[in-house]
């Protein structure tokens, strides 16, 4: 009886362990998925318009001529558009000469400038010295609405006494980029 009982207990224990193992062994997890969105709003791209050429008009040999940035008729002028209130970096590629007939050149230097969020070269803005080194400023307005910036340029040409007669010109390039601020 005793032997039978021991054997029986042993069988029960073994069976229970096997069953228990099957019950708590590793079980596959059901895959669960969640989604989110990545979102962004790209603001208005910058536009630059050369609104007015820097015009020296008639120049006499040997006589320097300066056009001030406040000269409403002859000063150079750029108009910038973009997202309102955005900070931009402004820089220039400036010629050192105007190119004339048969390879002749007319030196140009002493650049002056004025930037403003309104279309005025006399008040409300700030003067600066145009160069390849950028400066930062902000467009008018607020984020999400159109913004503007006006840039006015002046300079001086220094014709030689024997300056070749004819028309001279060159390109002034202004670069404007968002800073992200």
């Amino acid at each position, binding site marked *: 009886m005793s032997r039978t009982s021991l054997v029986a207990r042993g069988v029960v224990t073994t069976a*229970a362990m096997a069953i228990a193992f099957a019950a708590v062994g590793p079980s596959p997890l059901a895959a669960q998925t969640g989604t989110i969105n990545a979102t962004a709003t790209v603001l208005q791209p910058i536009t630059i318009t050369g609104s007015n050429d820097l015009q020296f008009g008639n120049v006499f040999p040997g006589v320097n001529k300066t056009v001030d940035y406040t000269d409403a008729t002859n000063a150079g002028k750029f108009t910038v558009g973009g997202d309102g209130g955005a900070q931009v970096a402004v820089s220039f590629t400036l010629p050192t000469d105007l190119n004339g007939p048969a390879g002749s050149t007319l030196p140009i230097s002493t650049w002056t400038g004025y930037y403003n969020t309104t279309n005025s070269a006399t008040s409300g803005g700030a003067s600066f010295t145009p160069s390849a080194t950028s400066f930062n400023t902000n467009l008018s307005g607020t984020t999400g609405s159109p913004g503007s910036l006006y840039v006015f340029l002046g300079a001086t040409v220094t014709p030689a006494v024997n300056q070749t007669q004819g028309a001279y010109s060159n390109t002034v390039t202004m670069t404007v*980029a968002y800073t992200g601020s």
Partner: protein
Amino acid sequence: MRDSRHSITSRTLRSALLPLMILVCGAGSTHAKAPTVQVARVQDLTFGNVFPGVPITVPLTDSRAGQYTLVNGTGRALTVQLVFVLPSTLATGGGALMPVQFGPASAGFSATGSLGSMVPFDPSIPFTATIAAKTTARVFLGGTLQPTGGQAFGSYTATITLTAL
């Protein structure tokens, strides 16, 4: 007498097995309905306003980072593989595309849900995570946008899927 005792022992065995069988049946139903980690959106990965030509990065610790919760409602710890399906671009309704990048530390797993205990990982590689019983863990995701200088303005979006396997 001996036969009688043996008979009593057999009855005892049968009655001992019955609860076990019931227990196993219960476990079997657990098998049929596999334990799961529930994945849910907390918030989008929001880059906000983006300037053309100016890359922008949202760190995974930033308040604008994407977030998911991983809820283990079971009574035991569960180990899962976290697998992202990541977009390479965000798009406008008009079809304009803007590249988005995810780096080797753009994602983070927090077993407790807090930023302090977050472990960064590469979202482009499956990540093994263990979530304690009755616990809500959290996954964070940052990224970098690369708008071009001529990037078309407008609203861009993309879907990011996280699967717990």
